[in-house]
C-alpha cells in the first residue's frame, strides 16, 4: 500500500502542470488551427472556427499562400525583409557578443563578478524601456542628431525613426544581444584552459588557437545563442513598430499583428502564424532537444 502511494506521488505532483500545459498551450494551438482552417462570417466579417478537423477548409491558407507566392504577393517583401534583418542582426550579435563573452569568461579576473552583473543588467531593464531610450536619443532634436550635426552646425537632417531599416536592425541587435551573450559565456567558460595552453605549447599562434580550439568548442553556445534570439525575432513586431512604424520596415510579426486587428482577417493571421511556425518547427525542436540533452549531461 505504502509502495503504491509512493509511486502515485510523482504523477500527482506533476499533474497540475500537465493539465495547465494541455489546457493553455495545446488547446489554444488547436483553436489557432481551427480558425486558420475555418471560414469567415460573410456579414460580420468575424472568423468562424471549424472544430472538426475533417471539415477543415483551406480558403484562408490559400489566401495567405497567394499573398506570399501568387501574382499579388504583397506579403513577400516583409517576409524576405524579416529573413534579411534577422540574419544581419544575429550575425552582428555574434560578432559583438563573442569578444565580450570571451573577456568575461577568461580575462575579467577580479572584475568577473562586476562584468557578469553588468552583462545581465539589460535582462531586468524592460525591453520597451530600452526601445524608449533609443526613441529619445534618435528623435529629430535628440542627442544623436545633436552630436552628429555638432549642435546644429552641420545641416544634416537624418530621419532615424520612420522607415529607417538601419535603426530597426540596430534595435533588434540592441534588444536581443544579451540573450546571446549568456549561452555564449557559458560555453566559453566551460572550455578547459589547459586545452588552450596545450595548443599554445604545441606551437599554435593566437589565431590558430582561436580558429582550431576555441571556435569549435564554442559551437554549441553559438548555435544555442543564435536560435535563442533568431526564433523570437521571427515573431517580433514591436521593435519595428517602436523604432520605425512604417510599412517599409514591416516584418512578419507586423503582418500578423496587423491582420489580427483588421476586420475579417483573423483567419489569415492564424494561417500566416501557422506557416511561420511550420518553418520554425525544426529549429525549435532542435533547440529544445539539445537543451534537454545538455541538462541530462550536466
Amino acid at each position: 500500500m505504502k509502495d503504491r502511494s509512493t509511486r502515485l506521488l510523482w504523477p500527482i505532483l506533476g499533474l497540475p502542470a500537465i493539465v495547465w500545459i494541455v489546457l493553455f498551450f495545446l488547446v489554444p494551438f488547436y483553436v489557432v488551427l481551427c480558425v486558420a482552417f475555418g471560414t469567415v462570417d460573410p456579414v460580420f466579417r468575424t472568423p468562424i472556427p471549424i472544430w472538426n478537423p475533417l471539415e477543415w477548409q483551406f480558403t484562408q491558407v490559400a489566401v495567405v499562400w497567394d499573398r506570399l507566392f501568387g501574382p499579388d504577393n504583397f506579403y513577400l517583401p516583409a517576409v524576405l525583409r524579416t529573413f534579411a534583418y534577422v540574419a544581419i542582426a544575429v550575425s552582428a550579435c555574434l560578432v559583438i557578443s563573442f569578444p565580450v563573452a570571451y573577456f568575461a569568461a577568461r580575462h575579467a579576473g577580479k572584475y568577473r563578478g562586476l562584468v557578469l552583473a553588468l552583462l545581465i543588467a539589460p535582462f531586468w531593464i524592460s525591453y520597451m524601456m530600452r526601445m524608449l531610450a533609443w526613441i529619445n536619443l534618435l528623435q529629430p532634436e535628440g542627442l544623436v542628431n545633436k552630436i552628429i550635426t555638432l549642435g546644429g552646425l552641420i545641416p544634416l537632417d537624418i530621419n532615424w525613426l520612420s522607415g529607417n531599416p538601419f535603426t530597426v536592425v540596430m534595435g533588434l541587435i540592441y534588444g536581443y544581444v544579451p540573450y546571446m551573450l549568456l549561452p555564449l559565456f557559458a560555453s566559453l567558460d566551460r572550455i578547459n584552459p589547459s586545452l588552450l595552453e596545450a595548443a599554445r605549447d604545441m606551437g599554435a599562434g593566437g589565431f590558430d588557437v582561436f580558429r582550431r580550439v576555441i571556435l569549435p568548442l564554442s559551437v554549441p553556445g553559438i548555435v544555442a545563442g543564435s536560435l535563442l534570439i533568431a526564433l523570437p525575432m521571427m515573431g517580433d513586431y514591436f521593435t519595428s513598430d517602436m523604432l520605425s512604424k512604417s510599412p517599409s520596415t514591416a516584418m512578419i510579426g507586423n503582418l500578423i499583428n496587423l491582420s489580427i486587428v483588421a476586420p475579417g482577417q483573423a483567419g489569415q493571421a492564424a494561417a500566416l502564424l501557422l506557416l511561420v511556425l511550420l518553418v520554425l518547427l525544426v529549429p525549435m525542436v532542435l533547440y529544445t532537444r539539445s537543451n534537454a540533452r545538455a541538462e541530462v549531461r550536466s
Partner: protein
Amino acid sequence: MTVSAAPAEAILEEAQPGRRRRVRGSSDTRAYGLATITVIYLLWALVPVAITVLFSFNAGRSRSTWQGFSLRWYTWDPTGSVLNDESIRNALTHTVLLAVLATLITVPLGVLFALALDRWRGRIPSGANFLALITFVIPEIALAIGLLFMVTYLATPFGLGTWAQVIGLVTFQLAYPIVICRARLLTIGAHYEEAARDLGASAIGAVRRIILPMLFPAILVSAILVFADVLDDFVIVRYLSSDASTETTSMRIYQTARAAPTPALNAMATIILVVSTLVIILGWLAYRRWSKRQGDTTELGSFAGNL
C-alpha cells in the same frame, strides 16, 4: 599538468629566448583589446537607459534638452506626473499585480512538475516537459494569439482581462522553474532522500523536509526571474488585455513613446526599473545567505537564468 609543463617551458625559453615573452605580450594586448570591446559594449548597452532615467528628472517637457533637476514628472506636475496621471498610476499597479499573481502560480506549478519529472519516467511527463521547454523559443506572438483566440472563440464567457493575462504569463514562464529546479535536483541526487526514507520518512515527508529546503535557492532564483520577466512582458499582456484598466507599463510605452510624450513616461519606466532592481538585489542577498548556510557555492551566472 602545470607540474610537467613548467620544465618544458623552461627548456623552450632557453632554446628560444624571447619567444615566451612575445607570446605573453601578445596575450596581454589581446586582453586589453577584449576589455576595450567589453567596455564599449557595456557603455552602448547601458548609457541610453541611464539617459532615459536622467531625463525622468528633467524640469521641462523635453526628453533631449536638460532644463534642470526636478521631481515634477514623479510628483507635483498637476496632470502629467506619475502621481497625478491616473492611467500611469494604474499601469504601474497593474504591472506589479500581474507579476505577483503570475509568480505565485508559476513557481509552485513548475517546482512540483520538476519534482515529478525527477522520478516519473514515461511519455506523458517527457512530452509535457518538451512542450514546456518549447515556450522558451516559440515566438511569444504565437502563444498570445492562441490564447486570444481561445478566449474569443471557445471560452467566450471567460473574457479577456487580468486573469487571461495571468494565464498567458504563467504558460510562458513555466519553463523557468522547471529548468532551474530540475538542474538543481540533478545535482542534489537521490541519496539524501533515500537516507531519509531509510530512517523512516514517508515519500511526502522526505520531499517536504529534505528536498524542498535543499531546493529553496533554485525556487528563489526562478521566482525572481519570473517576476522580473513578467514586469517586462509586452506581447502576451497586450493581446489578452481587455481595456484601459488592464494596461501595463510596457503597453503604455508602446502606445505613447512615439507621440511626443512628457518625461513622465521616462519616470514610469524608471519606477519599474527600480522595482525589478530591488527585487533582484533582495533576492540575490537572500540567495547568498541561504546558499552560504547550505555550504553551496553557486555562481552569479546561474542567477541570470543561464540556460
